[in-house]
């Protein structure tokens, strides 16, 4: 079992989840986060933290395709454990139905790497930058 990130994360990407995750199992795409199913330990901490209510346990019905999407992109997107500013228009997209078909981007996000340049107020846990993540190129 694992938790999975679903449709409403797309274009919202609030990133509150990455701060609380004890095992740093979130990976960042251009406009969405995913959870690595092999790394998630099912603690459930992230679920109530998500302002977009986009995280669910995979025991809920109908999430098979989301589980596959999470697994697939977690293996190519960079790891993220430090929250940054969410997109300026996040609120406008919160609750918009079927974002996957309209807006999903397979491109990787920046992950934690940019935070080392001190570009924002990323609080606390800077040691989590230690998390090794492959710096993938532009496209998966």
């Amino acid at each position, binding site marked *: *079992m*694992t938790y999975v990130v679903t449709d409403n994360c797309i274009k919202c990407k609030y990133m509150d989840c990455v*701060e*609380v*995750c*004890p*095992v*740093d199992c979130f990976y960042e795409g251009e406009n969405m986060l995913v959870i690595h*199913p*092999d*790394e*998630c*330990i*099912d*603690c*459930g*901490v992230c679920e109530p*933290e998500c302002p977009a209510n986009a995280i669910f346990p995979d025991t809920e019905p109908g999430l*098979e*395709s989301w*589980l*596959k*999407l*999470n*697994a*697939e992109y977690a293996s190519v997107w960079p790891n993220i*454990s430090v929250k940054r500013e969410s997109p300026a228009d996040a609120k406008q997209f919160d609750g918009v139905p079927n974002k996957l078909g309209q807006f999903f981007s397979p491109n990787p996000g920046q992950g934690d790497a940019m935070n080392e340049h001190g570009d924002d107020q990323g609080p*606390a*846990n800077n*040691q*989590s930058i230690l*998390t090794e993540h492959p710096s993938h190129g532009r496209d998966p």
Partner: protein
Amino acid sequence: MGNHAAANNSVVLAESPSEIGRLSEDVIRHLVDSFYTRVRADSELGPIFERAIPGDWGPHLATMHDFWSSVMLTSGRYKGNPVAVHLRLEGIEPQLFGRWLALFDETCRELLDHEVADVFRAKASRIAESLKLALFYRPDRPWQRSAP
């Protein structure tokens, strides 16, 4: 040592209208310490833990304070890879997770209110199941069958 503090914590929690909201770092620290005292004395779990942590238990206890603080208070203090750590353990067997859970639950019931103990049990059970699957079975990886 611990009994006094245990009783006090229990009273504090019982008087609160929202017990889980009153759960503090101190209570978690006390719970973790009490639990690992039992683990070390346990005939099944003790030897495995003593082998894994042969010297000073301070760092392990501090790690576990952080872990449970992260899980119960979403403090984000623990950052680690528990699967990798458990993979290195010698003598770990699937059925020991049941023993671990029973002992943990027993400790929670003694020190905490029902409501809080129930939350700890639910979290611990899910995490234990997840670790067990990761370490021993990995039978169901539906995400690996085919990419969408």
